[in-house]
């Protein structure tokens, strides 16, 4: 593959992925409103288009057309930088996620992953520190939240951002440690290798070789930490409406607010994808049909598994109440973190004994 084709293919992949992701974000908001409405015995949006299907479009137009207000006493540069940083970092995390194996279009084979490369031999490789890049992007994303609250020069924003950054830093530890069990089993930090490691022979002949079965405790910790990391109910203290108006984005309006909104939903996609890749076998599933279908079916399986997580998010939002802040911190430090450490010790012991 020459450098020019490489760049062209990379740009096409980036455009397609960003387009699909942002459309997905828009329709996730609709899904969330519909499902939560059903849980609360309401209808949800119905007016725009059939079943309210054009509602995201209306929301988008409204976001763009609204006045972009910048309050007087904000720290202007950081106030503008913060939403961009939050959105950019959630997009960076998506760059390393593999959606499928590979696809051949017009004689050019490429990996279904922005940072994946298909070699001339047919082998496909990707970044071998993929997980670390996702963790790094989420930890840089904390700056978006922290700076937004600080630069707004408003007490609600500041309190919200202090809560958010403390919560994100605390739960990042549990999140990272919960993944170590899977990494020990797979023996790699590359997301593609981890998925391939889950393609081994099924356990007892019918249970797929997914890491959720040996790592159910790790998955539980990951799930809890992921909810806290994305600031979702039951850990949505940073934007608790009853206490803090809207938390760190109180002073934001128009597209800047939309950027925070998109970043939050993209982060949901990222943690959902990570859970799929590490615990549920990624894109693995039954394959059939012509070659093109065979290369696109994995993407469908992947999307279905991620959809399950998004639905779980919404379901929990409609069901559970909010934690108190001290309960949240105690839960993270006194329960999740020791449990994650114990999980690592037991897993590494078993891996060492079997080796």
């Amino acid at each position, binding site marked *: 593959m020459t450098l020019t084709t490489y760049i062209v293919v990379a740009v096409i992949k980036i455009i397609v992925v960003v387009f699909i992701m942002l459309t997905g974000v828009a329709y996730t908001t609709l899904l969330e409103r519909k499902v939560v409405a059903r849980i609360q015995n309401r209808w949800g949006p119905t007016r725009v288009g059939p079943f309210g299907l054009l509602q995201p479009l209306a929301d988008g137009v409204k976001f763009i057309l609204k006045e972009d207000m910048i309050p007087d006493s904000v720290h202007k540069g950081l106030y503008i930088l913060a939403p961009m940083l939050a959105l950019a970092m959630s997009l960076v995390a998506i760059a390393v996620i593999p959606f499928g194996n590979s696809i051949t279009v017009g004689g050019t084979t490429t990996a279904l992953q922005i940072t994946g490369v298909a070699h001339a031999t047919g082998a496909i490789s990707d970044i071998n*520190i993929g997980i670390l890049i996702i963790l*790094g992007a989420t930890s*840089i994303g*904390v700056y978006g939240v*922290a700076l937004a609250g*600080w630069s707004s020069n408003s007490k609600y924003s500041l309190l919200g951002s202090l809560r958010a950054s403390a919560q994100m*830093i605390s739960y990042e530890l549990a999140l990272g440690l919960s993944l170590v069990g899977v990494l020990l089993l797979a023996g790699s930090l590359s997301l593609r290798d981890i998925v391939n490691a889950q393609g081994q022979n099924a356990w007892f002949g019918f249970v797929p070789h997914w890491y959720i079965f040996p790592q159910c405790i790790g998955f539980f910790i990951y799930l809890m930490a992921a909810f806290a990391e994305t600031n979702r109910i039951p850990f949505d203290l940073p934007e608790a409406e009853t206490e803090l108006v809207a938390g760190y984005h109180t002073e934001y309006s128009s597209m800047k607010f939309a950027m925070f909104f998109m970043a939050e939903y993209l982060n949901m996609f990222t943690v959902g994808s990570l859970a799929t890749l590490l615990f549920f076998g990624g894109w693995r599933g039954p394959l059939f049909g012509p070659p093109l279908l065979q290369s696109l079916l994995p993407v469908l399986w992947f999307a279905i598994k991620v959809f399950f997580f998004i639905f779980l998010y919404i379901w929990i939002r409609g069901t559970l109440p909010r934690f108190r802040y001290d309960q949240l911190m105690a839960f993270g430090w006194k329960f999740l973190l020791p449990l994650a450490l114990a999980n690592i010790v037991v897993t590494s012991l078993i891996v060492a004994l079997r080796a």
Partner: protein
Amino acid sequence: MIHQILFIIFGVICVAGAVNLLVQRHPINSALSLVVVMGALALIYLLLGAEFVAAIQVIVYAGAIMVLFVFVIMLLNAGEEERSRGSHIALLLGVPGVIALGCLVAWTMLSHNTQLGGVRINTADFGATQPIARLLFRDFLLPFEITSVLILIAIMGAVVLGRRES
């Protein structure tokens, strides 16, 4: 050629960020320029083939240590730096001394440029996670354990210092 261009770009970002750290009066601007320096350094580490170190640099330095700095600046609501008369000795002896030291080091390095040779991006898995882990947990096991004790003491010290006296 591309290697050199990339090095120059990231190196200029590094130096610009470091200079900005000194010029800015507000601590939060300084902290953010230091984050930029660390990000650019991580990219330079990638050029040197140290991918794991680069990732750790972003996660630990930019993502944890600097967040702590930003957090403290936010918590104390630190304002702009006051202009006060600094130490004259630092200004009179320190600044020329540091400039002389920098020039001396740079001149020494550049004059021995050809003998030193160069570095290139290697394709082998030098700097990958596995060999580093093997070295860290086998050959450097004792220092590693000692640093864990160091971290523990630091945590306890921070808790004791940060606690409000009742």
